[in-house]
């Protein structure tokens, strides 16, 4: 691309030079001049010029212009409200009109204190009202979903929310109804706003019209602190601010990393923080007591018991990692177990690899790709939701998106990928070897030499790769699989909730579980040490781009954090490890990141390391968990392969947030149209799904599903085998296993 031509223009008497085509609002900002806006938001597409807050005077044009719709042109002379009386009058008029029907209930409005309408009125608006008529009144607030409330009186009709719904999330569910001064925001057909990105409209809304039901009346801006950290719920690692008040997390906001998340969050990342305050959260170590279940013990006793369990296992220890530990924690655990006890065996839910570092690029590069190939049977949104938004952006920018169940490219597609300078491969499925298979494919297509071509693997865990690398760095020995297992250490809630880990526990003599929740510990652990959440820890995660990002402790956890007590426990085995994440990181960075990254560099907006040279993938450092003994894979005529999937809205964290219940998957089986037709099944029919066990579910026909499979969310598939028979329920009165909330 040739460098864009620069233009010189004058704003409020200041001369400024910017690349031609730069938005006037941004150009003014370069000159240190504010053009106030409400509706303008470049992330939502082209400007719409609706609110008229940004009026400016442009020399040679008699009428005031909406500054947000203009771009910098050579020789342009612009006056904003600061120097042009006419523009100031226009801005003042806009605010007067906005306020004519605005309720001005700031004292009871969540937005008060951080409200652009308050701020701009203060700077540009009239000091008093000339409106002597009754204001328009409407029912308020009304819920549009369990997480979002709408106050139509406060709405200034900037159409940011509807534009987000239409042109970013592309769900089309938020609409404007009626006309003129009775225009109002509504949901399509009055259905609740059910989209995995819905919460973004709260942050986009420039007034208190769209508010979070969770945050409602919880805090005021002058008594909160926003802690810059990252979301730990999926491998994207969106940059977030955790708003805290009096030691509690009150909401999650985006912190816009333009290369990672562009300022969007999924509803899981935004609304799941109440998991910190779940009723069954464990506050002290627990010990199994015969008949009574569990007994609470002190931390000193807890560490004594842990020490005894570790010593008693004689090195026959397996550690089931969640992949949501910080790299510092995984490293410390590795030092304790591997150096202190010679216990080298660990499993993760999925294989990991660094092979894709050779095809690294920021996620944002997907948005400009001319062709995106998504390989695998898992939905992108279930694994890494934000990646789904980047793919939509690519399509809106004219790129082609090809979805393949298997990594088999036809000759035409292969040729296209070879010749393209902006092609992206994305692996969204199992058995990808943590990116190793995709790396081989990318290499075979010649992506090595093309910086515009990249490849991404969507892992099943938020930090599996970082955890595996840290574990590997802790000691220099190969793993041996102990038989029988003396002690199974279950690290974290995802591991504790994993049926495969449970199956492993049945083969272990003892189980030590590190988990946040009672519900995950009962019945199988001999000792439970309380865990903390990603919002309560200091440390680092490696996201799916290979970007090391820093978690900051937003609030003090109710229990000591893992690094602290692991450090103490390690000392009992003669292993020295710091309880401070920064020091552990420094030690780790030496080996894993070649001493290049420092905790400070990872900072608030982590950079992406440069591409590595391609090397054929190595064997993975940490083994994946062996799947539980599977049912015999008999293929009767007419059976379908069960495609179990883990939906975005599932898992121990989401289950503890009542507001997210409505987002969880319905008790459905998804079928390809051809398979459904053959069985005379229509959308919504109640169907029987049979393998060793029998379930009744509702059928949903999904046109994008390949034939031959039945897709069922993990939590509804229960103990079905790998192949299932699906038929219409014979009894029409049998109700489906679950209702859509």
């Amino acid at each position, binding site marked *: 691309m040739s460098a864009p031509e620069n233009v010189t223009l004058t704003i409020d008497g200041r001369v400024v030079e910017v690349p031609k085509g730069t938005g006037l609002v941004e150009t003014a900002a370069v000159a240190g001049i504010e053009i106030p806006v409400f509706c303008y938001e470049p992330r939502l597409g082209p400007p719409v010029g609706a609110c008229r807050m940004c009026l400016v005077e442009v020399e040679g044009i008699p009428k005031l212009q909406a500054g947000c719709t203009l771009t910098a042109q050579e020789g342009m002379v612009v006056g904003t409200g600061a120097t042009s009386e006419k523009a100031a009058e226009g801005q003042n008029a*806009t605010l007067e009109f906005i306020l004519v029907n605005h309720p001005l209930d700031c004292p009871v409005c969540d937005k008060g204190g951080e409200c652009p309408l308050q701020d701009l009125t203060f700077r540009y608006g009239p000091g008093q009202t000339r409106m002597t008529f009754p204001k328009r009144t409407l029912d308020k607030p009304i819920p549009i979903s369990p997480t979002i409330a709408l106050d139509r009186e406060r709405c200034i009709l900037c159409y940011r929310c509807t534009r987000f719904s239409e042109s970013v999330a592309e769900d089309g569910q938020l609409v404007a109804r009626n006309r003129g001064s009775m225009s109002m925001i509504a949901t399509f057909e009055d259905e609740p706003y059910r989209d995995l990105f819905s919460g973004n409209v709260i942050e986009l809304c420039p007034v208190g019209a769209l508010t979070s039901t969770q945050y409602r009346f919880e805090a005021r801006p002058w008594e909160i602190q926003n802690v810059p950290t990252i979301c730990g719920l999926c491998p994207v690692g969106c940059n977030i601010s955790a708003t805290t008040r009096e030691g509690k997390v009150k909401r999650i906001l985006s912190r816009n990393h333009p290369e990672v998340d562009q300022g969007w969050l999924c509803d899981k990342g935004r609304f799941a923080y109440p998991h910190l305050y779940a009723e069954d959260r464990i506050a002290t170590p627990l010990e199994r007591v015969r008949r009574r279940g569990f007994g609470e013990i002190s931390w000193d006793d807890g560490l004594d018991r842990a020490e005894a369990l570790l010593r008693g296992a004689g090195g026959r220890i397996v550690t089931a990692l969640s992949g949501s530990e910080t790299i510092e924690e995984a490293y410390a655990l590795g030092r304790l177990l591997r150096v202190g006890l010679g216990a080298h065996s660990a499993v993760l839910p999925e294989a990991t690899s660094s092979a894709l570092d050779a095809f690294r690029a920021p996620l944002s590069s997907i948005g400009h790709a001319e062709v995106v190939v998504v390989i695998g049977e898992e939905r992108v949104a279930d694994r890494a939701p934000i990646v789904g938004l980047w793919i939509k952006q690519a399509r809106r920018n004219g790129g082609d998106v090809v979805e393949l169940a298997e990594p088999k490219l036809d000759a035409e597609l292969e040729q296209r990928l070879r010749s393209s300078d902006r092609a992206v491969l994305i692996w969204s499925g199992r058995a990808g070897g943590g990116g190793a298979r995709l790396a081989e494919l990318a290499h075979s297509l010649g992506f090595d030499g093309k910086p515009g071509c990249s490849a991404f693997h969507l892992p099943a865990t938020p930090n599996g790769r970082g955890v595996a690398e840290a574990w590997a760095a802790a000691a220099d020995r190969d793993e041996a699989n102990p038989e029988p297992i003396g002690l199974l250490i279950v690290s974290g809630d995802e591991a504790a909730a994993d049926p495969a880990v449970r199956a492993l526990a049945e083969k272990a003599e003892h189980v030590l579980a590190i988990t946040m929740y009672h519900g995950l510990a009962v019945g199988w652990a001999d000792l439970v040490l309380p865990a903390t959440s990603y919002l309560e820890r200091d440390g680092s995660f490696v996201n799916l781009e290979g970007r090391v990002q820093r978690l900051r402790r937003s609030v003090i956890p109710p229990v000591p954090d893992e690094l602290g007590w692991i450090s103490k426990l390690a000392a009992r085995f003669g292993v020295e490890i710091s309880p401070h994440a920064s020091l552990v990181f420094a030690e780790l960075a030496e080996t894993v990141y070649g001493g290049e990254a420092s905790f400070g560099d990872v900072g608030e907006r982590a950079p992406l390391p440069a591409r590595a040279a391609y090397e054929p993938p190595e064997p993975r450092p940490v083994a994946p968990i062996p799947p539980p003994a599977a049912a015999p894979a008999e293929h009767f005529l007419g059976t379908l392969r069960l495609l179990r999937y883990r939906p975005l809205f599932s898992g121990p964290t989401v289950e503890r947030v009542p507001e997210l219940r409505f987002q969880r998957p319905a008790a459905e089986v998804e079928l390809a149209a051809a398979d459904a037709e053959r069985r005379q099944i229509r959308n919504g029919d109640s169907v029987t799904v049979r393998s060793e066990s029998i379930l009744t579910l509702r059928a949903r026909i999904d046109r994008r599903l390949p034939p031959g499979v039945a897709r069922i969310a993990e939590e509804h598939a229960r103990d079905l085998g790998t192949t299932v028979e699906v038929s219409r329920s014979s009894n029409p009165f049998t109700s489906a296993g679950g209702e859509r909330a």
Partner: protein
Amino acid sequence: MAEQRLVVLQGADERDLTKLAEYRAIGGYDALAKARALTPQAVIDELLASNLRGRGGAFFATGRKWSFIPKPDQNPNPHYLVVNADESEPGSFKDNEILSRVPHRFIEGCLITAHAVESKHVFVYIRGEYLGPFEAVRDALEEIREDDQLLGGVTIVVHRGAGAYICGEETALLESLEGKRGQPRSKPPFPAISGLYASPTVVNNVETLATVPPIVAMGGAAYAKLGVESSTGTRVVSLSGNLVRGGNYEVAHGITLRELIYDLGGGVPDGRELKAVIPGGSSTVILTAEEIDVPYDYDALAEVGTAMGSAGVIAIDDRCCMVQLGIRVSEFYEHESCGKCTPCREGTRWMTAILRKLEAGEASDSELDLLLDVCDRINGKCLCPLGETAAMAVASYVLKFRDEFLAHLDGGCPFGSQSPLDGVVAPVNQHTQSPVAEVPA
């Protein structure tokens, strides 16, 4: 000066031109054949020579508009011709008569234009309430449906609107045609570059297109001799209000408003006096009875601070209360505001509220100034002309009939209930549902 049905409605009084055979009998569709024998550019040149200017309200030169369409090699997207048949301006009903009486001339104009701008797709966006005109066009299309040679590979789709004045604004029309909420787009880009489905699009008014075949037939230069220099040709003017003979009259530009009202419209009935004239539909600045010697052409009307708009001339006699006229017009725009931009959406509602207070005799003179100030604050700040013209029109009633407004300050309307506008209100209570989603607990 008498009426001159020279161009657009020519022949319609003598024959039933809704019938293909009758239209053919007076040389119908010959202009199409003539145009197709010319290059697209040659047709555009003919239009440039005619100096035809758009009849939809903005009076933009039609030939120039067509010449902005990129050539197929500059933009690979299809070209579209979109016909604006949404005629909803109070006082304007000319397109209704053109579509109803000379549908074939209109269709011929569409086909010639499609040739000139190299388009194969014509969309006619017709006002939803215009059932008769819709049927006339549909029947006419039915008659030529099988005539591939006539159609020349062009598809004509007639789309009926759903009752929104704003969908007559060309970009709101395009949004609506795309199935979106009818709200104007921010310009640029103009439709010629990025219109329907982001492709090059010409939007023209019905009358503009019905004028095209006669221009091709007689030649641009001959057409330019009709009318006056700044406003060539003829215009179909809708006369309404307090007149003896309301209706559509095709006249050459340059006739005076007085001639229109007295010679063609037969003057004010019942021995009343003319008080005021709205010269170009409700969005234009009002003229007093003393100002009507102005010639009906673009420049002359601009000189007296008003516009020809959509050529809807409304005569107002001395029984009409100007405050009530203000309410009626303001309510219309409040009701029809699309709600996209702040000044129009909020300002028109405020204007109506002040006018109502004035009518009830409860306002003070500071509120009369407030009304003017509100109008002034709307004007020049809106996204599209709807809000601005509403403000200018209502402000002109106050400025030109201030005494009458002042007379309302104590005791209310001096006309009592004698004004014919008394109690006539726009249906502003439509579009006020406040739907609530059913959300799981």
